[in-house]
């Protein structure tokens, strides 16, 4: 029964120093004047009692017990080692107990202070008069120029690898388009009427005319349509195959 309560007692402490301080306080004297030897003996007695019921005592308790055992031996038989060694150890232990005691008092002093949220309350619903104005822009010339260069580099780099892939109307496109439109337009319509809508002037348009002409020639070779040109540089006309006219190209 006694050992059980001893264990529980030990677990109530925040480590060995806590227990030492409690033991020191029970001596009811000035911490500087307490008998360290008596303190050590009390501590070791408690640890011994605890170990009897529970061997797996936490390491820091055992380290403290070992150190105190050493200290006790030096105090009892000073000639075992340097006498100053034990004196320094006693002073260190006393100083640590004093410091812990002081911090205990500080915690208690803080605990006695009126605390926010318990003894005093601040405004529950503060008002914020800060307005954020995000309407303005932060831009600089350097940024604009940097952006321009970046855009040109990227655009230029792209052009190197894929030179206008979709711009030109290919022969393949023209074959498909002619095949689809043939018959839907009046006989002998001009080649230009078979061009797709929305072509840009210049190279794209000329490319489309060339592609459609090549496609027309290809289809005429297969006998699927006839081509006709009345005069040099005149309009090229396309007609269905049934017409008697012979293909004439320039």
């Amino acid at each position, binding site marked *: 029964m006694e050992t059980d309560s001893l264990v529980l007692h030990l677990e109530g402490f925040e480590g060995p120093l806590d227990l030492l301080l409690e033991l020191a306080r029970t001596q009811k004297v000035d911490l500087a004047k307490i008998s360290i030897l008596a303190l050590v003996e009390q501590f070791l007695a408690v640890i011994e009692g605890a170990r009897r019921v529970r061997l797996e005592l936490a390491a820091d308790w055992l380290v403290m017990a070992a150190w105190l055992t050493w200290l006790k031996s030096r105090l009892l038989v000073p000639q075992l080692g340097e006498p100053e060694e034990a004196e320094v150890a006693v002073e260190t232990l006393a100083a640590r107990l004093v410091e812990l005691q002081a911090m205990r008092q500080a915690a208690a002093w803080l605990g006695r202070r009126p605390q926010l949220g318990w003894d005093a309350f*601040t405004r529950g619903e503060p008002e914020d008069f800060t307005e954020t104005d*995000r309407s303005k*822009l932060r831009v600089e*010339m350097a940024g604009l120029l940097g952006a*321009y260069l970046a855009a*040109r580099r990227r655009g230029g780099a792209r052009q190197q690898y894929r030179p206008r892939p979709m711009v030109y109307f290919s022969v393949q496109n023209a074959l498909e388009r002619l095949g689809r439109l043939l018959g839907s337009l009046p006989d002998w319509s001009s080649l230009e009427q078979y061009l797709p*809508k929305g072509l840009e002037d210049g190279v794209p348009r000329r490319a489309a005319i060339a592609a459609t002409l090549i496609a027309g020639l290809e289809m005429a070779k297969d006998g699927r349509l006839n081509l006709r040109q009345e005069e040099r540089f005149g309009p090229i006309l396309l007609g269905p195959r049934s017409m008697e006219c012979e293909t004439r190209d320039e």
Partner: protein
Amino acid sequence: MSETLTEAMRLAEAVIFAAAQPVTPRVLASLMPPDADADEVMAALVALYAPRGVNLVQVAGGWQFRTAPDVAPALRKVVELPRRLPRVAMESLAIIAYHQPVTRGEIEEIRGAALSQNTLDLLLENGLVTPKGRKESPGRPTLWGTTPAFLAQFGLKDLRDMPRREELLIDPAGPVISAPAAAEDEAAP
């Protein structure tokens, strides 16, 4: 003023001050001494705070302290947090500045990437670009140019204050120089 009234006023002002929400008459009543007249207490408090920098007001079914309306403007602090333009917008703006008047398709071609409506809207909202007529080509696409606000934003007197393109694009290693001459001609300002 009776002692009961004074004490009831102190309690009421403290709880209204500390509460995170408007304090309902029910909560107030539960705190006050049984012999206190809640209406009298609140009327006295309202009168007490009326000339002060903080007033006691009734809102949303409860009581609350609010900063006096005439003091509030003095407390107002405006923090300017200017926005930066996203990179895409900045690039598009630079292209419009250098190549204006320019169509959306041309911007896309120069950047080598699509130009989203959002980006164009952002530039329009900030008054940096404006339509400058339509190009006489299939589809008659809108031509874009910069505005006086653009000049003001970048601290320019006029567009000629911008570094010339030739000064910028001198990087011999860069692919910009090797861009097709046709495209360069077409887009020249």
